[in-house]
């Protein structure tokens, strides 16, 4: 029944929408786990947007000047401090890891277990280095610059609370993603999904790309604007 729907209607047009919702049957023609991952990601979008919107709200309403992020997150390698350089490196690391993940998904569907395993491990390693750099960044901000959730020497007190809350919650997502990816990677190598199929890799990939996606917004709104 559901197969017929998949095959007949134009699979992306309005007809397919009516078709999928117009009868007492399965609405999403994707594996159950994938649909549920998407539901989770949509709800996570709401959480992150609420955080970013509260940031918007406090930044607009504070009468203290907002601390200059570009200078605060500058890092010097012996010479003059380069603005935002660590954040830029973190951004590139996360994009690289997204690329290795998308390849892992592709090789997963080709049932190339070894390539899938290693690509997922590499993705997880990039994730770990991201978290490591974030730990470095936090340490520098707390110890050297004296930024606290309730105040900082530069300007508006809300800077600290917003920074620790948003980047902390994102870092938590990356850390959870690393554990998630490694779990799936080792199960792939053990041949756990030979019979069940390799959708799990795609589902794990969705989560990982989402983490990258959230960083795109944090990078723009918190660090650049």
């Amino acid at each position, binding site marked *: 029944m559901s*197969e017929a729907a*998949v*095959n007949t209607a134009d699979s*992306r*047009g*309005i007809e397919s*929408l009516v078709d*999928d919702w117009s009868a007492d049957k399965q*609405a*999403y*023609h*994707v*594996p159950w786990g994938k649909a549920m991952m*998407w*539901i989770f990601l*949509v709800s996570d*979008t*709401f959480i992150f*947007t609420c955080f970013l*919107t*509260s940031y918007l709200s406090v*930044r*607009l*309403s504070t*009468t*203290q000047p*907002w*601390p*200059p992020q*570009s*200078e*605060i997150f500058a890092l*010097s390698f012996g010479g003059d*401090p380069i*603005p*935002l350089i660590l954040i*830029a490196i973190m*951004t590139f690391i996360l*994009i690289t890891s*997204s*690329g290795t993940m*998308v390849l892992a998904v*592709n090789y997963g*569907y*080709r049932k190339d277990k070894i390539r899938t395993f290693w690509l997922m491990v590499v993705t997880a390693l990039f994730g770990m280095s991201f978290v490591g750099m974030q730990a470095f960044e936090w340490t520098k901000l707390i110890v*050297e*610059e004296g930024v606290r959730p309730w105040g900082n*020497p*530069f*300007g508006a007190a809300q800077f600290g609370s917003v920074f620790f809350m948003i980047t902390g919650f994102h870092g938590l997502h990356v850390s959870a993603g690393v554990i998630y990816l490694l779990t799936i990677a080792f199960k792939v190598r053990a041949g756990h999904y030979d019979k069940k199929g390799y959708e799990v890799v*795609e589902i794990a*990939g969705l989560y990982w*790309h989402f983490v990258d*996606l959230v960083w*795109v*917004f944090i*990078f*723009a709104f918190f*660090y*650049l604007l």
Partner: protein
Amino acid sequence: MSSEAGQQHPLGVYYKVWALLFVLSACSYMVDFFEVQGAMRWTLVLLFMVLKAGFIVAIFMHVVWERMALVLTILGPPVALLLLIGLMTIEGNYVAGTRYQYMGHDRDAVALGPDDLHGEEHGEAVEH
């Protein structure tokens, strides 16, 4: 059956988008590096952000290849968030206005940077 079998696409698409994401990230970093300010900064940063987010969702997360029922479930609800953002912008500006008006804060106050506070430690002479 192809959509049941999962999302399988030629690797070329991924490599192209991957490269594009690097270029877009480099572009948004350049905006900060060359200290583009004002309306131009907002335009460029938001443009690169939307493009990057769009390519990640569309290609890496396979949304362009999904059926409409799933696509609307993913992209529909977040539209409501635009309303929240709009309302909070109005609210935030209003609160700031009342604070300036009734609490006498300085509208032209300038934030301090790390160099102002401990320029010596960074080995930098503070010359503004």
